[in-house]
């Protein structure tokens, strides 16, 4: 009995460890042909398209009835998780209806978002004018801070445990969302 359960449980873990965080329903509306560099070149050309983007939060601004999040774009891996690398094609803005707490959606956290391209906004960054593509969020996922997901760092036994539990936790949230 145990001998059967353990491999199945292991297989389930592996399977669920790769589960994307944005739902099938939303993903089916996403136009996967739109690349971020192209979008940034000319946001207006993609108005109305739904795109999947991710990155690291730069700032969260609360408006009267909506919340804007400025994100530094990062490429997404198979889990739809923004990468750690410094490589980025630029910044974008996401508009959310209602209130998102800037204490939670804090600078440095990773965000994956599927949203509809609304156009562009030009804002100054230091001495230049920067063109931000703007999305209206449809569905998003806020990643837990890095340490939870990191590869083994605490020695073999515990390290593997952390990995298993870490991905386990992530899925829990993803599925119930």
């Amino acid at each position, binding site marked *: 009995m145990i001998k059967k359960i353990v491999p199945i*449980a*292991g297989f389930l873990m592996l399977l669920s460890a790769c589960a994307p965080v944005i739902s099938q329903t939303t993903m089916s509306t996403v136009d996967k042909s739109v690349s971020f560099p192209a979008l940034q070149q000319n946001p207006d050309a993609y108005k109305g398209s739904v795109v999947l983007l991710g990155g690291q939060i730069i700032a969260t*601004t609360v408006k009267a009835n909506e919340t804007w999040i400025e994100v530094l774009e990062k490429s997404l891996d198979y889990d739809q998780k923004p990468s750690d690398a410094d490589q980025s094609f630029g910044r974008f803005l996401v508009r959310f209806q209602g*209130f998102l*707490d800037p204490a939670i959606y804090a600078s440095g956290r990773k965000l994956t978002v599927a949203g509809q391209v609304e156009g562009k906004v030009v804002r100054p960054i230091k001495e230049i004018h920067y063109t931000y593509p703007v999305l209206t969020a449809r569905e998003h996922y806020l990643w*837990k*801070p890095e340490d*939870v997901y990191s590869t083994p760092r605490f020695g073999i*036994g515990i390290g593997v445990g952390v990995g298993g539990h870490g991905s386990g936790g992530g899925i829990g949230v993803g599925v119930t969302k």
Partner: protein
Amino acid sequence: MRVGFVTLSLLLVFALSCAPFPPETMREVEKDIAFEDVLKDPGLFKGKVVLWGGVIIETVNRPDVTLIIVWQTELDFQKQPKEPDRSQGRFIVRYEGFLDPAIYGKDRELTVSGTLAGGEERVIGERRYMYPVIDARDIRLWEKRKEGPYYYDPWYGGPYPYWGPYPYPYGWRRHPYWW
């Protein structure tokens, strides 16, 4: 010998972890009061005793009181905040006296019991936000987790599951077959 040690540490955990709040308070706490309802209209719930928890955003010292601004989270079985990202909103803990912001600092987890005292409107960005205010009776500031409030490692500190003695939710993950 080995079994004895495990049992002993489990017992110890039980003894240490299960009674963070005085029973008198726990009896008074109205468990049916939902945070979201209070958030909608804090005035309606004035005088009710609740047990809430969350993560500290900021601690403000006034001459005679300390205000702790917290984002609410659910509590686990031992009344410790869990799942910090699934917050329903913010609230303010009002404590008669001085609490050091160097200790009650940002991102620390806290559980508080006390009496609801209405609401206080403050501004977050461009939004007016009505914070429920709770007059603190008992405050429990939780030990820092090794990796901050997001870290839930049941293995914390070693192979003995002393972090959570009871319903051990990740039990089946303890022995993946490839070990």
